[in-house]
């Protein structure tokens, strides 16, 4: 991931909690220093204001922020299993469903990158399948979770469950991608009694 201010790699990943919402800032060392100095100056100003009786500017306890962050970082995607912490570290999401699962957390980050939170460009022409809004494909991304279930079933030698997962995957894929199997992995039957 690149610094939001220049082309250097972002090495500081700062999460700002503002009025209950989360904002992510990704910066190189130089811009992080400028940014943090600014924040410190602002904090100094608000502390002065508080001294004049501004009760609202009481800072959150450090422990409280850390707890919120830890809880957020542990949240994981139901389909691919990536945690928000892993995403923050790598700068890459795990699967298309992350945009649904982490919608609230991603919104401020995306707004910061693009200055917008709504796609206005081209849309797929294919109709929605399985109750999905036109163009939306989240229902199909359920296959990612099913494939994980299938692999787990195979590893614990529960071939019945694996077969059920495989059939469900094939059903969904056939509905979305008619005319041939589109990626359902067959459970291996090696070692099956």
């Amino acid at each position: 991931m690149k610094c939001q201010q220049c082309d250097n790699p972002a090495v500081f990943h700062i999460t700002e909690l503002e009025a209950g919402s989360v904002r992510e800032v990704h910066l190189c060392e130089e811009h992080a220093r400028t940014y943090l100095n600014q924040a410190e100056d602002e904090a100094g100003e608000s502390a002065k204001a508080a001294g004049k009786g501004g009760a609202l500017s009481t800072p959150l306890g450090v422990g409280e922020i850390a707890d919120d962050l830890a809880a957020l970082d542990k949240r994981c995607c139901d389909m691919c299993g990536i945690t928000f912490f892993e995403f923050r570290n790598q700068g890459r999401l795990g699967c298309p469903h992350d945009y649904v699962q982490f919608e609230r957390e991603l919104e401020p980050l995306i707004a910061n990158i693009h200055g917008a939170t709504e796609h206005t460009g081209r849309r797929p022409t294919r109709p929605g399948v399985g109750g999905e809004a036109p163009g939306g494909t989240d229902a199909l991304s359920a296959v990612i979770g099913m494939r994980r279930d299938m692999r787990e079933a195979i590893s614990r030698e529960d071939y019945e469950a694996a077969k059920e997962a495989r059939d469900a995957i094939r059903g969904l894929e056939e509905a979305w991608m008619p005319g041939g199997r589109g990626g359902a992995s067959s459970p291996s039957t090696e070692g099956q009694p």
Partner: protein
Amino acid sequence: MRIDTLTDTIGEWLRGTGPESDIVMSSRVRLARNLAQFPFVSRATDQDRAEIERVLRERISGVPVGRGLDYIDVGRLEEVDRRFLVERQLISREHADAQGARGVAIDGAEQVSLMINEEDHLRIQCLHSGLDLRGAWEQIKIVDDQVERVVPYAFHPRWGYLTACPTNVGTGIRVSVMLHLPALVITRQIDKVFRSLHKISLAVRGLYGEGSQAMGDFYQISNQTTLGRTEEELVQQVADVVPVLIDYERRAREFLVRETQQNVHDQVSRAYGILRTAQTITNEETMQLLSRVRMGVLLGLIGDVKIADINSLLMRTQPAHLRKLCGSDGAGADDIERARYLRQHFEGGDASTRAAAN
């Protein structure tokens, strides 16, 4: 496709034709797309990657593009062949260096390439020589529609096309032009120009995209945001700034000729002299000197060299091209081979280079 057959041509980005091709080397549009039913590449298992590659390869093979698509299994290529495709701008450096199942489908004219399992499952690219962003966009739109008919792209009604990195989400489009700006470099105006581009949310990169050095005064200008504006608006954003940059570069070239002709003539002639006589020369120095000679030819300071020849040399003296052309193994002798190749060319000894460049 046999990669060796590509050495007979010089590729689209250095073909050196099309509008404004004295400054605009090429125009490129790329789209990032993913299949809805798989994890993104960085989280995919080896088995997932193999399945993604199989599904896309099979389905793309039926898509009618230009004179037809050839598929290259990048995972099985030798390192020199992967580099070769990077030098021709047909795959990215990231794609060349990645691991696991991956490939690229290329059309015969080397204008369209579809990379499978790059950062996203599919990266479609259209590359046109000279200034032709509109043409590249119109072409990629058709390819994208055709692929969309046969695979379900991950799409969200609010976020648009879903990508592994949120910096590409929405349209997934990157619109870029490759510019040759030697006069702005010599007159030290280039940093000022880049700062103003940055202010209007345009990115400046080197020859091979993200994180690469600007070699031989070649710079890529591209859009930075992908969400909240239509593809046409984003194409227009880059298209609007190109005439301004062309104007700056032309004025800087005129200034050089008017105010410092003797000096610039000397620089260009020395560059030409080194290229014709050096016994060992690095890729970086070659690019830099060819860049200066290219400008010298365009300014009428060197008479007996064609721009097409310079473009051809810019491609063929890059490491992987040189290794394939000269059959060297790259074990330290590259710089000597490169110097020999350049001398032969300028002495008129290498007919194949001239023929292919014409």
